[in-house]
């Protein structure tokens, strides 16, 4: 690699990483991410009503429900994270009600009675009871009641099991092209789209703003003249693209590292493994994700998707570099970068709409168009609306765009970086396009 190109890249990265604001911003970012990944522990640490379990006093006037109810709730509480304690209350409930009212307590009284051969339960509380607790109690009571009724009907155990076995529901699609895991994929993609697009958006903004700020700083300080008298504008242009993208990669790695630290701390606090610490639902989802073959499908296309995303970063950087060279100060560049933001926002909206407008030709075409493809195509791939072919088309179009941006962009860049006046700017730009390098 050219010695001066190396110097420009090294200096650019050093300038960025050696600032106290980079260090401060990353310390803040680390703290925020660690706090977010441990938000429940943080909330618990500061305490509050929620940290005390809700006590359920069971007044079982039938003398048959309490033990089964206790077992049922114990099982449910292994999956659902809500704090409930259950206790059988055999004294007069009137005094208990009076105590709860006087103390404005969040405890609950569950009275179970049998009137005219019908089981009737009453839930008494001072305040509103959260929906999860009510649902838990309702489901448990209904199941116990059903079991008791079946038992009293003298049905043998095999019959009982037969009754309790859920119905097998098979799904058949007459359209052979459809993916039987589509609904799962749609659900997972709903979770992944923001998780993918938000960091992408952030990193693109970092890259664009870094290129704009660096070029404008060098232009406004006139040091550009000294730099360009020592290295060609093309080398300078390339150095800016590489520096900004390297910085974005470093920031991404740090971002991932902060998440790992956050999860590690979570493991230490909760003393559980990764999936357990985020609850049983995620664990189940991950199992389904692997079993459905989606993971395999994603891994097959992943290298190409990564190439496409990297190429998109290069294309966005080139565009930002060209625009920055045309401006004379940071304010002008801020205005010029607005169209880039709008392009990314369009990509984001289309990606969200993709699952609603299934197999839309318009959306599929947008998914291969440079600057939009890196946002839309991975989402469409995930929900099965496009395949590897469309990804390859998107990559080819991106390579062509990068070629055009380098060929003509470097001509604009050469004229733009030494232009300090907005007069006849477009005329100068169009004239520069006719120049040979």
């Amino acid at each position, binding site marked *: 690699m050219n010695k001066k190109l190396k110097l420009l890249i090294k200096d650019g990265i050093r300038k960025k990483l050696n600032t106290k604001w980079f260090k401060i911003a990353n310390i803040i970012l680390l703290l925020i991410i660690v706090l977010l990944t441990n938000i429940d522990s943080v909330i618990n640490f500061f305490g509050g009503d929620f940290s005390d379990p809700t006590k359920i006093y069971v007044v079982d006037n039938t003398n048959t429900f309490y033990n089964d109810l206790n077992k049922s709730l114990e099982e449910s509480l292994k999956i659902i994270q809500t704090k409930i304690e259950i206790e059988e209350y055999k004294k007069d409930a009137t005094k208990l009600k009076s105590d709860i009212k006087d103390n404005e307590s969040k405890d609950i009284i569950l009275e179970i009675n049998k009137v005219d051969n019908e089981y009737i339960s009453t839930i008494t509380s001072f305040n509103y009871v959260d929906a999860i607790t009510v649902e838990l109690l309702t489901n448990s009571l209904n199941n116990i009641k059903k079991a008791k009724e079946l038992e009293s009907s003298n049905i043998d155990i095999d019959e009982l099991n037969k009754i309790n076995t859920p119905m097998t529901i098979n799904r058949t699609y007459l359209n052979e092209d459809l993916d039987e895991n589509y609904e799962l994929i749609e659900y997972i993609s709903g979770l992944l789209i923001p998780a993918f697009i938000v960091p992408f958006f952030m990193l693109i903004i970092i890259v664009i703003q870094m290129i704009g700020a660096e070029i404008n700083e060098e232009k406004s300080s006139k040091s550009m003249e000294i730099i360009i*008298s020592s290295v060609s504008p093309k080398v300078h242009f390339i150095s800016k693209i590489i520096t900004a993208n390297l910085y974005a990669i470093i920031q991404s790695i740090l971002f991932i590292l902060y998440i790992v630290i956050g999860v590690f701390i979570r493991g230490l606090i909760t003393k559980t493994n990764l999936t357990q610490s985020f609850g049983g639902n995620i664990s189940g989802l991950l199992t389904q994700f692997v079993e459905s073959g989606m993971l395999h499908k994603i891994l097959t296309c992943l290298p190409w998707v990564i190439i496409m995303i990297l190429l998109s970063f290069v294309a966005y950087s080139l565009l930002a570099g060209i625009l920055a060279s045309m401006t004379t100060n940071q304010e002008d560049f801020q205005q010029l970068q607005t169209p880039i933001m709008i392009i990314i926002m369009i990509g984001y909206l289309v990606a969200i709409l993709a699952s609603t407008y299934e197999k839309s030709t318009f959306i599929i075409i947008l998914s291969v168009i440079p600057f939009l493809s890196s946002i839309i195509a991975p989402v469409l791939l995930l929900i099965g609306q496009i395949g590897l072919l469309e990804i390859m088309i998107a990559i080819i179009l991106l390579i062509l765009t990068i070629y055009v941006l380098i060929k003509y962009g470097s001509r604009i860049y050469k004229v733009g970086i030494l232009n300090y006046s907005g007069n006849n700017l477009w005329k100068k730009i169009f004239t520069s396009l006719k120049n040979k390098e």
Partner: protein
Amino acid sequence: MLKVENVTKYYGDNPAVKNLSFTVNDGEIFGLLGVNGAGKTTTFRMIIGLLDKSDGTITFDGSPVDYKVTDKIGFLTEERSLLTKLTVYDQALFYGGLKGMDKSEIIERLDYLLEKLEIQEYKNRKIKELSKGNQQKVQFIMSIINKPKLLILDEPFSGLDPINIELFKKLILELKSEGTSIIFSSHRMDHVEYFCESLLILVKGKTVLSGNLKQIKEDFRKKNIIIEGDIEKEKLEKIKGVLGVSFNKGEYLVKINDMSIVDKVFKYVSTCKNITKFVVEEPSLNEIFIEKVGGSYE
């Protein structure tokens, strides 16, 4: 040796520089003068390869100026061209590196120049924290960090006090003695006269005067006569060929339009009393410049 031959530069249809030719030999200081907008910056930019020429050739030591030779060139711009967020040390590493120098070479040269300009204590200070004069010193150091073979100095004394100007002058003369070809541009004609053996004056991109400074002065027909004594100003003014007479600090300054008038003036002065001084002087560069460019300059 820098050779500029018939160089022309057009911006659109407007010529910024037209048929410009001059040569700067090794160890020579060459003055490139002109009012703002005359084409000096365009010329500098073409010499260091920032701008493409529309026509003509520029060679340095026989080779066209390209990125293979720019490492041997130093450029002090009229405006500040420093990355002010950097320290003096970091700035030197960056600019020196761009000139293809090794780190140890840069540090050695930086220490030498900081000492010469008496600002060693600012080595690790951020440039933005320095005074205007010290920033100019740093800018000068950056332009000569690579011991250039060709140095372009555009208003090098801007913002400097007389003591620091002397420090700069010593360094410039040191570079000259080491064989550096220097192009010097300044609005201060006394500085140009101090340094330059030859010069060129640009007006709207065209050369209106060029050559050896001594020869230019000799060839300039208008001269000055300084007289001290009891003379009558009105009588002097009536002599044909006398352009004007002024009185300042006990001396009369008589401007004449060529040497043949000296005899006529002397003849009259010989008739006057108490004459203690009669000196025929070359015109100053400032006068020549004003005459050629047609405007007030300082």
